[in-house]
């Protein structure tokens, strides 16, 4: 939309007026055949409604619009105009082509950004500086942030629901795969592979643990203790297909020959100090998983691994 004609010094030639907005042409474009010129904003708006020249109704599309000839641009750039901020006291008279650069730095621009000097650190349009109240502005800022925070929290809760839903679906899928495996041998190999990989992934997600006092081992844990360990395993993401087997292996009656009695344990101390142990999160217990301990002798290991519960001494 063009410049207000009253801002210009002297008469402006009719040829420099946009027939749509009746202002002085701003960023003009012309129609290809009839060469009628219009402000870019005006002709774009018009063509979006009707693909014709607004003066003579010849067909024109947006892509056919052309820049105006240099002579017209030069005539426009030589026009002398007052500043946009003349109502705010700017007395500058400028050539049209230098208006844009002047506006950027015009001191009379009521919207010029100014830093607040009272200390809140906000940058405020000049004309709002007098009304500016640091506390109010900052409170408003906090309120908007609080609003965003609430939105994010809500989104988080929704995402949690979605994730739980996915987990449930994944469990069903695994169930389905187990059923498939039972009915199809090649599926079984594939599923075994996937399950092994799942165990490895879980094992890698657990922290290494160090047993400082092997003597603190509880080789015959009671049911309550076993339940606690089992829950902890489950929460750490233990693949469900091994959790029961693992828990079975927390009692010395299921341990491998090299560990099965106090006496053999004392004899084999040198061997089980080589175990790669993983921490059962939050518990005085370690996991000795088969996949982590391929280096130890077979009479010291069982599938899928051992659970060793201690009274103390786990780091």
């Amino acid at each position, binding site marked *: 939309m063009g410049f207000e004609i009253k801002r210009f010094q002297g008469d402006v030639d009719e040829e420099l007026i946009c*027939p749509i907005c009746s202002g002085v042409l701003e960023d003009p474009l012309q129609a290809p055949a009839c060469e009628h010129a219009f402000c870019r904003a005006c002709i774009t708006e018009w063509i979006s409604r009707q693909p014709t020249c607004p003066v*003579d109704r010849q067909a024109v599309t947006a892509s056919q619009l052309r820049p105006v000839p240099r002579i017209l641009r030069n005539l426009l750039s030589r026009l002398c105009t007052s500043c946009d901020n003349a109502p705010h006291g700017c007395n500058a008279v400028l050539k049209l082509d230098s208006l844009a650069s002047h506006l950027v730095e015009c001191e009379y621009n009521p919207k010029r950004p100014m830093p607040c000097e009272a200390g809140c650190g906000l940058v405020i349009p000049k004309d709002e500086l007098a009304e500016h109240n640091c506390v109010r502005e900052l409170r408003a800022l906090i309120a908007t942030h609080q609003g965003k925070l609430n939105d994010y929290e809500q989104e988080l809760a929704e995402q949690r629901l979605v994730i739980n839903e996915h987990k449930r679906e994944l469990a069903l899928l695994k169930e389905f795969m187990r059923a498939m495996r039972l009915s199809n041998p090649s599926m079984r190999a594939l599923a075994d592979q996937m399950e092994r990989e799942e165990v490895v992934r879980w094992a890698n997600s657990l922290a290494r643990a160090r047993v400082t006092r092997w003597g603190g081992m509880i080789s015959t844990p009671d049911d309550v203790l076993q339940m606690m360990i089992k829950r902890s395993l489950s929460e750490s993401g233990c693949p469900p297909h091994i959790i029961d087997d693992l828990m079975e292996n927390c009692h010395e009656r299921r341990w491998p020959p090299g560990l099965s009695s106090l006496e053999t344990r004392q004899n084999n101390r040198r061997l089980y100090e080589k175990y790669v142990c993983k921490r059962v999160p939050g518990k005085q217990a370690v996991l000795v998983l088969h996949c982590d301990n391929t280096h130890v002798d077979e009479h010291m290991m069982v599938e899928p691994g051992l659970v060793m519960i201690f009274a103390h001494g786990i780091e």
Partner: protein
Amino acid sequence: MANIAAKRIKREFKEVMKSEEVAGGTIKLELVNDSWTELQGEIAGPPDTPYEGGTFLLEIKVPETYPFNPPKIRFMTKIWHPNVSSVTGAICLDILKDQWAAALTLRTVLLSIQALLSAAEPNDPQDAVVAKQYREDIQLFNLTARHWTNAYAGGPTVIWEFNQKVQVLQDMGVDEDQARVALSTFDWGLERATEHLFS
């Protein structure tokens, strides 16, 4: 009102005021309110037409989206013309509809409406009854239009026969405008007009 519309209307208003048509008294334009959204136009009936000597008032409403959309214009003075509704004053003129162009102004539009009075388009009618009369009995149409110009637009030509017939119906208690519409519609046949009004 959108800035661009107000700016255009102000400029066009000045353009009309400075024009030779205003100087010659054939068109006029007045503001109705301060917001430049409503104006009142006035056109003189063109010479050598049944509208000669009459003055026709036009209601002009400027939409927010002017000049991207045309102004809404209708006759406030009743007129007998194929392209103007004899009931509402609505005008059938292409430039006020799909042939509107943003470079048209109030002045050019008023002149176009004036030109429409000189050159009716009976094949693209707004008022089918008037258009039928225009096509079938141009002389009667001219008389009727002249009579309406006299009755509503201050035209000089009095057609006594028509006035008397209107008066007859008025004496029966019929509203004057209704009487004139009925008589005009039935080619000034008093009997059929009466029958129509009282059926």
